[in-house]
């Protein structure tokens, strides 16, 4: 990749171009979810809308993903402070919490299914499956990034360089984003049912 060329060329910039590119992509992802949520509101306003309460499992998963953001933040902080052990363990914890989040979401879908709200029924339920499903797809992307970070963390010799800081930052920003995104979606689906 050409990152080396650009980095040396433009290190007078305050933000890394790659970080900026990530934020631009996040704006794009946000627009997709805004599309879903506005479709939800428009469809809801049209009537024939089945109202139900989300299974408690989604509240649990919300707690789990928020916690994973805390551990991620810790990992970044530890990396910058060159605390290798804390960095590695927190990165691993984040990764595990991410997996647990996805399992909890899946259990949540099963619980919805069991209570009679299935995909083919009223769109109110179908929207929940769709929105949480597309969100999980984005979490899977985050887990892939974490996996790369883990492989780097456990195989490369521990050394705090600018380049590795940027990489870790980008992973962390994305992870915090999918976390905040889920909190917003959860609150939305809870209050606009």
């Amino acid at each position, binding site marked *: 990749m050409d990152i080396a060329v650009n980095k040396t060329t433009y290190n007078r910039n305050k933000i890394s171009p790659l970080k900026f*590119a990530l934020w631009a992509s996040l704006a794009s992802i946000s627009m997709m*979810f805004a599309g*879903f949520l*506005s479709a939800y509101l428009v*469809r809801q306003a049209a009537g024939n809308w089945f109202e139900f309460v989300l299974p408690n499992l989604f509240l649990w998963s919300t707690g789990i993903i928020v916690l994973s953001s805390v551990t991620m933040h810790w990992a970044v902080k530890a990396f910058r402070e060159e605390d290798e052990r804390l960095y590695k363990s927190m990165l691993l914890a984040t990764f595990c919490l991410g997996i647990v989040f996805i399992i909890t979401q899946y259990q949540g879908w099963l619980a919805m299914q069991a209570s009679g709200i299935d995909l083919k029924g009223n*769109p109110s339920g179908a929207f929940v499956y769709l929105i949480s499903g597309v969100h999980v797809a984005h979490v899977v992307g985050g887990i892939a990034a974490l996996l790369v970070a883990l492989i780097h963390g456990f195989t490369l010799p521990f050394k705090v360089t600018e380049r590795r800081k940027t990489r870790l930052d980008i992973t962390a920003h994305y992870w915090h984003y999918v976390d905040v995104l889920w909190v917003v979606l959860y609150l939305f689906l809870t209050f606009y049912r």
Partner: protein
Amino acid sequence: MANLVETAKTKEEALIEELGYDDHFHDHHHGDKYQSSFVSKYIFSMDHKIIAKQFLITGMIWAIIGAAMSVIFRLQLGFPEESLAWIKPLLGKWIVVDSNGFGTLDPEFYYALVTMHGTIIVFFVLTAGLSGTFSNLLIPLQVGARDMASPFLNMLSYWFFFLASVVMFISLFLNTGPFSGGWVAYPPLSALPEASSGSKAGMTLWTTSLVFFVVSVLLGGVNYITTVLNLRTKGMTMWRLPLTIWAFFVTAILGLLSFPVLVSAFFLLMFDRGLGTSFYLSEIFIGGQALDHVGGSPILYQHLFWFLGHPEVYIIILPAMGLVSEVLSVQSRKPIFGYRAMVLSILAIAFLSFIVWAHHMFMSGVNPFISNIFVVFTLIIAVPSAVKVFNWIATLYRGRVRMNTPALFAIGFVSMFISGGLTGIFLGNSAIDIQLHDTYFVVAHFHIVMGVAAFFGMFAGIYHWFPKMYGRFMNETMGKIHFWGTMIGAYVIFWPMHYLGMIGVPRRYYSFDTFDAFGSFDGLNAFITIGAIITFVVQLLFVINFFYSIWKGKKMTEKNPWKANTLEWTTPIDTGHGNWPGKIPTVQRWAYDYGKDGKEFITQVTPLAEGEEPSDH
């Protein structure tokens, strides 16, 4: 002569050497890993200039396919009584030949041709082929960067477009035919495979292809925005950017914010098609059978689709506007008139484009009071558009215009934009739309204002920057024939359509046999078809000129043949990876110092003379 060229070269080079920004480019350049083999140089290239050519040539192939489709369905519309048996070798079973040897175009395939023509031209040619080509070519060169922020993502952007192209191309050969429900793909027709044969596998491939396409647009867009904001060279403030870059930058923002909404519309559509949800589907009977879908709203899709769909027309036209602004200024040897007003009107158009989408839905059962709001915002777009038109004309006014092919196409763009823009004011009124919606008036309007106009902008850009791309010029004689053929041809095709539309002739119809009222238009329809065939042939002349000139065109002997101010003309004729061999130029002034202080042009790398007032205040 050789001596003169030598001196001209050294002047800009000396300035870059003296004032340029040293990024130790060569220190990190052990061998050229980007261009070391054929595959990494021409196929999986990460060099923005090669990627630009890939977008351009892929776009050209699609343009030929898309235009050929229109010729075939125009044959049906213009000469419904003539046998089409002679195209059977090409179209196979889609031409039905009866026992007398008389061939007719299958009506289902007619719809598929119309649908594919729209999809291909809107997305593959005028989005990828136009913005993909020129954003890639010009952003790094004109802002003074070695390459895009992430050349790797840039390469992926092209290959996702390629993948989208392959999937769409395969769909043309399906037994059930490509998707045939119109380029807007409204449900329920698009959501129910049993609704028509094109809605089966054809629709599945259509959505798949467009999702890949959106990924390509987003990867490209993220790169363009990041490069413009982060990688501008020293001295290149936002207010010194050439208008091309402003246009590409704002286009990329529009794409980044609107295409994801199209993806959400497609996700809901895919769920309805594949998983049995009812987002868009309400109580429907097909063949007497009730489907078990209940409670969906097809209007919902239209809202989501046009939330992209409207910005999309500006995604198409803004790059053309940027190219035309630059070409007009350079070729008329005058600064662009009202630079800041040009930038502000680009921004205004971009902002307004997000709040006018429902003007595509006036007749879809939208609340008339809400329609009023959309009418007002739609008509307001005429203001920044008129500002731009005024400024282009004022730029030409009393300029020493070089009447070469790029200039002609740029002027032709202005003509088309005015003709097509004016009919937009008619259509933007919800009351007049009751008569005009879904007629040939709409077809005439959008073909002139965003189809032909965008093509003109693209042609102006290709003729103007061809020397930068290939180090040779395109043939002027062929270029001028191409221009006049296209200019006259486009008006011959689309002008009469206004009359058809005003009478109420509906678009998308296969035949008007059963409408006595429209019988008097047979001659006019034949006239339009002949115009379309001639215009199509003239485009082939362009293709011949393009490929002939790559290898045999007149060679470029100096770096800056148009005597332009922007940075791309300070790079070597054979521009290598990294664009400038030594230092990166720093920018001392804005891009439009033409005819200032008695000098014909002053390049952006030239420092202000003693006591000289900068023009960009």
